[in-house]
């Protein structure tokens, strides 16, 4: 049974995924351990009451102290009105982990950037390199490749050439070519013939 696995992307993907998973999990632990003081707050929202305007209060205070009396500045409120005013205020205790957010976004952007770079390399840089290495005569344009000017058409050639030497680099190259052919087939079937299965 043939499994058209692209060896190289699969490896890279597994490594990146494991790294990502580990990183995020580790960060959860470190973030929980060393809680940034900025990451905890008690937010009280008080609507307008009589002549006191509405206000929002943010204070960095522990959960048991998160109520109107500790957070809201009651200087401008008259004594008899305090209770009524405080009844209408809603106080919520919130926490977040800024480290998690930062690490996640940065890791995501870097992986996205890597993928974009790889895509640019595949579509633009590689045909230029291949053309220089193998010469114009080697490029085979397959017949049904009408609108698809991808460089993968000469993959068979590359395959034949690289089979002769059996070291890791050539194996990687071989796997990459195989993957590219596979993706090209998929692309043809999805984008050109509009069928998902071949």
């Amino acid at each position, binding site marked *: *049974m*043939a*499994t*058209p*696995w692209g*060896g*190289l*992307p*699969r490896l890279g*993907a*597994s490594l*990146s*995924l494991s790294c990502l998973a580990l990183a*995020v*999990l580790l960060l*959860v632990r470190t973030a929980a351990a060393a809680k940034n003081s*900025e990451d905890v707050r008690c937010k009280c*929202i008080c*609507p*307008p*009451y009589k002549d006191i305007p509405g*206000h*929002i209060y*943010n204070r960095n205070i522990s959960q048991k102290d998160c109520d109107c009396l500790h957070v809201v500045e009651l200087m401008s409120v008259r004594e008899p009105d305090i209770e*009524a005013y405080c*009844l*209408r205020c*809603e106080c919520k205790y*919130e*926490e*977040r*982990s800024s480290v*998690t*957010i930062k690490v*996640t*976004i940065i*890791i*995501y952007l870097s992986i*996205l950037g890597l*993928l*974009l770079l790889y*895509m640019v390399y*595949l579509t633009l840089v590689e045909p230029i390199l291949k053309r220089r290495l193998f010469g114009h005569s080697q490029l085979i344009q397959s017949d049904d490749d009408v609108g698809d000017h991808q460089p993968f058409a000469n993959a068979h050639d590359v395959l034949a050439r690289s089979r002769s030497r059996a070291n*890791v680099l050539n*194996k990687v190259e071989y*796997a990459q070519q195989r993957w590219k*052919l*596979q*993706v*090209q*087939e*998929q*692309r043809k079937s*999805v*984008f050109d013939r*509009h*069928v*998902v*299965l*071949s």
Partner: protein
Amino acid sequence: WSRAGAMSGSGNLMDFLDEPFPDVGTYEDFHTIDWLREKSRDTDRHRKITSRSKESVWEFIKGLLDAWSGWVVMLLIGLLAGTLAGVIDLAVDWMTDLKEGICLSAFWYSHEQCCWTSSETTFEDRDKCPLWQKWSELLVNRSEGASAYILNYLLYVLWALLFAFLAVSLVRVFAPYACGSGIPELETFLNANLENTFLSFFFFPPSHFFLLLPSSSLLPFSSISSLLLSFSSVSVFFLSSYSSSSSTSSSFSFSVLSAAAAAGVSVAFGAPIGGVLFSLEEVSYYFPLKTLWRSFFAALVAAFTLRSINPFGNSRLVLFYVEYHTPWYMAELFPFILLGVFGGLWGTLFIRCNIAWCRRRTTRLGKYPVLEVIVVTAITAIVAYPNPYTRQSTSELISELFNDCGALESSQLCDYINDPNMTRPVDDIPDRPAGRGVYTAIWQLALALVFKIVITIFTFGMKIPSGLFIPSMAVGAMAGRMVGIGVEQLAYHHHDWIIFRNWCRPGADCVTPGLYAMVGAAACLGGVTRMTVSLVVIMFELTGGLEYIVPLMAAAVTSKWVADAFGKEGIYEAHIHLNGYPFLDVKDEFTHRTLATDVMRPRRGEPPLSVLTQDSMTVEDVETLIKETDYNGFPVVVSRDSERLIGFAQRRELILAIKNARQRQEGIVSNSIMYFTEDPPELPANSPQPLKLRRVLNLSPFTVTDHTPMETVVDIFRKLGLRQCLVTRSGRLLGIITKKDVLRHMAQMANQDPESIMFN
């Protein structure tokens, strides 16, 4: 997935790169899984391991590991699901806000996070803080006025286009199958093994990195289906990498996929039980109890992981988790049922229009998939910006619509006329008359509703990962909220009407428009997907309101009835039929009176069945037969004269066995006789060594007689998960029925064009 003989390709780094690969670039057809065979193979393997485990401690440990390997895989799936959901939530939040502005202190914060610590927020302008600046403020230093608006508008559209373009080009270069919601493909995969080509979509894990882009680009996509698929893909990916080849049976990988689907819904909606039920109802085909238990475990682990990552900062799991407990009244069932009818009608409308549009897409417009995505994004962004309800991300919209208006909400939707002397506590505000803001909000919502309906029809099915859950819920929530506000105002202004008099006194909190939004969302989602139990469970796990089960059930049932009155298929089944996948639906009923003879092959006028004989064919004959035909297997009969059936041999196994024999066994040449019996046949003295192939023969193929009604045959195929079935009469082999033949026949009976079903 059926690993035959020596083909095991996992574990070793060099093995990945070294796999022998007959035809680069061409693909085998999909093959249906032979469940019976898989099951018996699995029990064989199990028996072998348990018997060996008594031999030594090491074997015992290996046996234990094998038993636990399933659970370990589930644990990994759950962990990954939770992690991925956390990453996706954070990244989508950030990218959605990136379209409007950026946080100056730390660019990785979304709007809400940026203003989290600021103390300059005022009661009137709760969203503004000096650290977060819109693009117009950053670029031209102005935040109000026409030029600022135009600049913001332009940048919004440009960012949306950039995201969409990145998404479609990444999909095109890396994973062309990662288009659509993938649930139809997942369902078909779990129904019929669609091997190689198809799984390569799933097996490109980085695809989930750019699944975020479409949702952030404001196209009405939900990341939920994407979540499901990325989990499935990642889980099966890990499965193939880390399990040894012998334990990767197809049924196990299917249970892994079902569990992954359950874990996906669990983290997407914060509904572990709903996720398991969703997997059971929508996705799975063969669902033994063991899978149920394992899926539950995976969903649990996923929910736990997500909670520990805590992306929303409040220990909630989902963006729109609401928690109010205001009661509802029996008289409100009438608007709830109306919302159910609306949901059913929306489902029908959506399915018909979307299928019609997708048909047109495959014929004419499909030539320019990238252009189509760009154009649709441009139109969406341009039309969406002016209306604040379409400008924000759909999840935020749903969250706002589900929320009840306390005294503290500042959105336009909550612009009720407050009584300034009122001293009621925050969550028991009585019904109030609507202020001007509410009326504005209503007509903006109406426009947004129409827009969302239209745009979802056109975008579902485009060549980027897209989903359907969130857009349907948004449509329903908008409709529900409008109905809710209408009922609330009616109750307030006419509290002396007979319908309101009994339960709604002035000064009491009677009507909760947020609840109507929830019911509407459930109705619309049910109308489109035709889910029943799983939908209700998801909705009440989402909201935490056990007292709202009855309205949700009423709406779900009504919407399903109304939608079923117009068409039997949900959106996923409709897409399966559109794409011609070979899906044997468990829910369909076969009520025609055909017999097995009518469906079996060969028909009259066709060449006779290709069979193998028990002991009179040479290796060369068999090889020629295999080369000339492309059947998946061949029946083995006693001889050509007496066509009594002995068994069934699979093509792949024959090929492998012959190849092995030629390489390894002595004296096997093309003229060697191939025999399937226990003892070799009588041969003349000089003949070459005969080849015994009894081990590749399945001695218990499934047979029916020629007069078996097709109803029974279809039932057998469904319930046992057969791939093919032989037809005999008085013991003599007449023909064969394969699953594809059954599907073709069903399509023919249902007047669908049988040629549109995809197989050769």
